């Protein structure tokens, strides 16, 4: 019997039969995501549906004993291959662990399981007059998995530096570790930091390579008596970047994102039900917007007491104008970019995503994220130029970018996305070409601009570039997961 057979035998004796499967058809639907080229897929060895932390523990202990690797999948909506197997792993589908354990209104946090969606948490928090950080990812995505990857979103300025507080993690040895204030058992889930080194941080950005997170406490915020969307427009990117830096550092907004004109036109597919990308999006010169459309807009969320929000809004508008930008009245955005308005108002201000059927733009084009990287503000300006050069060399229109501040604008997140309008089969060569081009690019971006890529399957050589830090991490990895069963396909180590 193979090790997978042995593991299967053990699992069917400990799990209800209907929550463990080695059926090929069942496994097939877990093999691919948006990043899978046509015909390329690795079937998971098994799929298991745990319901409790103890079941996760028994699964990991058994997998570790038989040295069978696992991939945790919280909700599965990752688009970059992080929740699909690459080496025949067991997929641990955590969707049945979908309880909101606690909404603590006194200390303003929630404790959730990995199967809880942004939708669920937003609704539950909202009923208590609170709001959670909402990323641009789908509303059906996992709050736990998304937060572990440093999410961009509507409260990115507010949660600086992180929306996560404490964790419960199961390691391959079967230890159930609670971090932060939760480590004491009597101190609640309110804080990330205690008297000891921060272990929450160890698991953030670890992509399931050190253990499976089974509970997380996350920050919640009071909903303002006023919640407002402020749109400013810019004719180029540099003043917009400076604007975002200023308004975040001066604590004027909860979050702000810059979207270039292509992205704004792309938003038009939301709500409008349009079947095809607008013609203007396909133009060769992607740097110059069509007449009457600004190069880009910065969408900011403001909330709090009305009098304060009024002042904050005025101040933001003044700063934008001083930098050459301008205020874009909501009536104007509703006219020029109605889809953008509907989307931003829902997700940015109301704190809830539109229905996928309204929000989705996939009907017209497939996303192929080029880079999702962070860098210092001045380097972000270099990255814009780098992006245009790269796109001119390697890509076909349309492509688009958005930028937002992280970490109180000490760094910015830069997302560059290429859209594939044809069928994946027709565009397979293009897709493979872009992937290869990206792989080289990441090293260039790090070397030239200090830009750090994340939320992707990694190139294993990246960790080596970090020297002693990487060596220490490897030691920790070996200590926690000596058999390297935790998500080896993500290539972090």
């Amino acid at each position: 019997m193979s090790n997978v057979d042995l593991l299967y035998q053990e699992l069917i004796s400990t799990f209800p039969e209907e929550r463990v499967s080695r059926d090929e058809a069942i496994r097939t639907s877990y093999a691919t995501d948006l990043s899978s080229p046509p015909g390329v897929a690795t079937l998971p060895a098994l799929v298991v549906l745990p319901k409790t932390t103890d079941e996760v523990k028994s699964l990991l202990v058994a997998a570790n004993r038989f040295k069978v690797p696992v991939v945790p999948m919280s909700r599965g909506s990752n688009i970059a291959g992080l929740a699909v197997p690459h080496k025949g792993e067991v997929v641990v589908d955590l969707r049945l662990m979908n309880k909101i354990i606690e909404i603590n209104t006194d200390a303003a946090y929630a404790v959730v399981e990995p199967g809880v969606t942004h939708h669920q948490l937003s609704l539950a928090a909202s009923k208590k007059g609170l709001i959670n950080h909402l990323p641009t990812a789908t509303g059906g995505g996992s709050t736990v998995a998304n937060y572990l990857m440093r999410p961009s979103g509507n409260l990115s300025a507010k949660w600086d530096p992180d929306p996560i507080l404490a964790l419960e993690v199961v390691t391959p040895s079967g230890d159930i570790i609670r971090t932060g204030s939760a480590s004491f058992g009597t101190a609640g889930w309110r804080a990330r930091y205690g008297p000891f080194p921060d272990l929450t941080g160890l698991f953030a950005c670890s992509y399931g390579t050190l253990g499976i997170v089974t509970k997380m406490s996350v920050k919640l915020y009071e909903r303002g008596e006023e919640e407002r969307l402020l749109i400013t427009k810019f004719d180029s990117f540099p003043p917009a970047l400076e604007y975002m830096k200023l308004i975040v550092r001066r604590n004027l907004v909860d979050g702000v994102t810059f979207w270039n004109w292509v992205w704004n036109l792309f938003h038009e597919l939301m709500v409008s039900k349009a079947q095809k990308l607008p013609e203007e999006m396909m133009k060769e010169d992607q740097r110059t917007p069509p007449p009457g459309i600004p190069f880009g807009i910065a969408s900011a969320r403001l909330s709090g007491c009305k009098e304060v929000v009024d002042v904050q809004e005025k101040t933001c508008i003044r700063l934008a104008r001083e930098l050459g930008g301008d205020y874009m009245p909501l009536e104007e955005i509703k006219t020029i970019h109605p889809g953008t308005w509907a989307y931003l108002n829902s997700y940015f201000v109301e704190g809830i995503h539109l229905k996928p059927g309204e929000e989705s733009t996939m009907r017209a084009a497939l996303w192929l994220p080029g880079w999702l990287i962070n860098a210092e503000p001045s380097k972000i300006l270099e990255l814009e130029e780098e992006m245009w050069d790269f796109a001119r060399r390697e890509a076909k229109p349309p492509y688009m970018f958005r930028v937002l501040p992280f970490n109180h604008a000490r760094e910015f997140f830069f997302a560059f996305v290429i859209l594939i309008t044809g069928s994946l089969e027709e565009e397979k060569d293009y897709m493979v070409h872009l992937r290869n081009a990206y792989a080289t690019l990441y090293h260039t971006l790090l070397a030239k601009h200090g830009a750090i890529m994340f939320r992707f399957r990694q190139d294993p050589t990246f960790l080596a570039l970090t020297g002693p830090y990487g060596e220490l991490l490897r030691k920790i990895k070996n200590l926690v997961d000596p058999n390297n069963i935790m998500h080896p396909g993500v290539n972090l180590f």
Partner: protein
Amino acid sequence: MNNGIKLDKRLYNFTTRCVRCAECTFGYKNAEFELFCPIYNKFNFFTYSLGGIAQLARALHEGRINLTESVMDIVYHCTNCGACAEVCAEVDFPDMMELQHEVRARCVEAGQVPFAHMAVIEGLKKDDNMMQKPKAERGKWAEGLEVKDITQEKAEVYYHAGCRYCFDEELWPAARSAVNLLKKAGIDVGIAGKDETCCGGRAFEIGYQGEFIKYAENNVEMLRTAGIKTVVTSCSDGYYAFKVLYDKIDKKGDLQVFHITEYLDRLMKEGRLRLTKSAPLTVTYHDPCHLGRKVEPWLRKEEKLEAAEIYQPPRDLLNRIPALKLIEMRRIKENAWCCGAGGGIIDAHPDFARWVASERIEEAKATGAEAIVTACPWCKRNFSDAIKESGERLKIYDIVELIEQAR
């Protein structure tokens, strides 16, 4: 691997562009994100969802998997209720169920269909009905009704009973009530009696698209010969077939198609029918999928959108019954939980069908209602069976029976 399955470009694009968010398994915020996909709720693997089936379809298209019995089993557990399509519309068509229908059609081509469906289709071919009953018995439900036979004489309105009402004797009173009500309102109504044939809708849903087209053509030809311009049916599957499916294959022409609830509601608004007798009952109403989600706006040729959902008329009818109190369940209208009988499940997986029904019955009981009312013979049959099996005290009514009692 050559399994002979190729999806068209639109469908393949959908399968490659699904982000696997699984939002197809639960309702949106007005449903508080509660799960509403029966197969996902029962089997829990992502595979049992529209997104999961999309990944399976992608693998079939790319030749990574064969059309095995296991694939067929998954595909044929879907109740075809269309809840998934309420939330998701990823691709360049709003009817997400097209993928499901296409995969089932390929299953039929490959001979991978549930044995029970083969038997049903054999029965259809032989006796023109989905109930595996002799054709000669089709008109029995209407014996003694004194209603015109449109194959013999002219009538203005054709009442199509549908296979389930025609052959399920327990349901005959509802079909007979429908005809009586139409006659009382002065409608020049006729039936086709023993010459009525299946609408083909359920054949379409289980993948027999050729059979569906054949029955669509038969029905349209019969109505053309009889000079019929208006069809009224009590069968929600029939309504879906005549109203939407026939239109999609360009067979509907200028036929006016009404569900009985819609038609009675109109007659009452015109003052042609009145309800005077009280029915002191507390009831809850179950929305049949084929009167709701499955007939919501669909993309017609020239991209014209047409809507045919019937959510309000049954409620208005119930509210007109003196002393009757209507209480709503949690999941209603576009977020309604399916009864479990659709998509051929009642034939292929009766245990699962009853499980789905029992979930709905629990929801109905939680309202405090004494009875669950529906407007579909398949829903009523499945609820009745589930209630009998569990020994529940909840009563089950066809809405037309209640209307007839209150008249």
